[in-house]
């Protein structure tokens, strides 16, 4: 099993290396180069040359990639082109906010999805299953900016219960934190709850259709015991896999949600950097998001390996 996990982890590292290469190559796609993109069409040849030297663009691309990668390993992402501040400072300022938002969303979403998914799976085609399935299907298809703007319209504009914008320079009190994070967390959680609940339901229904469950039913084991003891134990691996997959989805969802609520997180730093073509910042943010995504995918696979005895005991 360790062998298998080790191989999978190595594969994850290789993928991350490929991602770093693609992120770097992305800026090489530019017509012209970074200096041209930053200074615009009307730059003088002298200022262009100066910036090229400053950015090290006079060196060959392969060399620049290697030295950039070496910097990244030491958490040195270079200097922002727009603000001349080290990228690491910018990233560190924002990373905490994004982690709070993502962590809270996950903490809210996972238990709710679990209850809905299990509830629906215990009585397939029952009333609760039908209603929750169709609701989950619809919510999972909604764009985050629709859910977000709808929540703002209802709770901030009409009812005036919550602030429309999540100002989180620092949280002075717990109450303030709850009110400013309620809508961003609800938006993110709604989408992952719906997806997770559907997948958990499918997993448990699948397990319940296996012969050993039928055996337990015939033996006279109570329904509750069958679900909680027999079925759940075998569904733990696939469910952990589902949870990790959906948490990986947070990486995409958070980009839109931070923009809706003008939340000062890493994703907004990235979107602003894309608009101003601040390449060192873009590279750092994309690399961080991709690293988290790959790590969660890796966790999902490890959960599947641990949960499956056939893979666990493979030599």
């Amino acid at each position, binding site marked *: 099993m360790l062998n298998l996990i080790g191989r999978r982890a190595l594969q994850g590292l290789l993928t991350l290396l490929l991602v770093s290469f693609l992120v770097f190559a992305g800026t090489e796609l530019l*017509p012209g180069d970074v200096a041209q993109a930053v200074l615009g069409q009307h730059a003088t040849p002298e200022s262009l040359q100066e910036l090229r030297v400053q950015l090290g663009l006079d060196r060959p691309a392969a060399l620049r990639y290697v030295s950039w990668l070496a910097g990244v390993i030491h958490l040195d992402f270079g200097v922002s082109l727009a603000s001349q501040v080290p990228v690491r400072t910018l990233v560190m300022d924002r990373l905490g906010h994004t982690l709070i938002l993502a962590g809270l969303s996950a903490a809210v979403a996972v238990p709710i999805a679990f209850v809905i998914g299990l509830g629906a799976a215990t009585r397939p085609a029952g009333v609760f299953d039908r209603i929750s399935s169709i609701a989950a299907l619809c919510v999972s298809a909604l764009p985050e900016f*629709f859910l977000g703007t709808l929540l703002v319209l209802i709770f901030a*504009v009409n009812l005036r219960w919550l602030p429309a914008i999540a100002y989180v320079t620092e949280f002075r009190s717990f109450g303030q934190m709850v009110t400013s994070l309620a809508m961003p967390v609800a938006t993110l959680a709604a*989408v992952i709850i719906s997806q997770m609940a*559907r997948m958990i339901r499918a997993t448990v229904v699948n397990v319940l259709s296996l012969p050993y469950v039928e055996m337990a039913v015939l033996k006279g084991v109570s329904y509750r015991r069958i679900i909680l003891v027999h079925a759940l134990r075998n569904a733990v691996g696939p469910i952990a896999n589902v949870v990790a*997959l959906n948490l990986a989805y947070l990486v995409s969802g958070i980009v*839109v949600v931070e923009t809706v609520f003008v939340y000062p997180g890493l994703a907004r730093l990235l979107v602003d950097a894309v608009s101003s073509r601040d390449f060192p910042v873009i590279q750092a943010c994309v690399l961080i998001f991709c690293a988290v995504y790959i790590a969660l995918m890796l966790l999902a696979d490890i959960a599947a390996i641990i949960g499956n005895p056939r893979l666990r005991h493979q030599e």
Partner: protein
Amino acid sequence: MTAVKPSSAAANRRNAKRRTLSATGVFAVAILLLWVLVALFGPFLAPHNEADIVSDVNFTRPTVEYLLGTDYIGRDVFSRLIYGARTTLATGLIATLIAECLGICLGFFAAIRGGIVDSVMSRLNDALLSFPHIMMGLVVIAALGSSIPVLIATSGFVYASAVYRIARALAMDLREKEFIEAARARGEGTWWVLSREILPNTTLPLLTDFALRLSFIILFMSSLGFLGLGVQPPTADWGSMVRENMEGLGSGSLAPIIPAAAIASITVALNLLVDELSRRTGRIYGGARE
């Protein structure tokens, strides 16, 4: 061979059931048809041009003259919604067609060739899939700037990798079937087998995938529009319309909600349709959004 042949009445009933849609299916198809008609006949339906500033007042409430009110610089939201349907649906459809064509061709090719070609292509594809789509979109747009051709090409390319995986899996299921072996034994070429044997036998799952992919691509492109990195003004596009009018949200204007709801109606309808279709093919689609 002692297989029991089902009575013709039962078979007829089953066929009838296969052909008719359920109530939710009809509802979904009706919404999609409505938007397609709006997109096709947009210029005849819209009272104003998409870029015309028709009122001195921004964010007016819905009135008889401006059915859905005006936007942040006094343009008619109703007209822009209609023109936006054209942009959003056309760009989404073209990108989905690119993704499907690319994914199906490469996926079938990998499945038929097998061996080292298949391994290399599939490993590369796995690497591409482990990159969140929105990140790939942001990197490309940062490098090339945002224009409609760049958006379409990026979305088409990014989503082709998921199509590749499904197309390859479908073709792998069929590869060992007798009728394929028979065709090969007859001396038919790879292209013939792909287009005449494999494609017709995978039509329904691929159509289902098309609908799902279209909903993902519309979400992807309108998210980019919402971030201000999609279709650029003054062209009306639903995602960009939400962004432009966000400042009106605080005063309770519907201008940002309406285009967002339009996108939601299309993606929900597509997913209801996918749910309906995947029940017939017995394959589960959906799951995690990509």
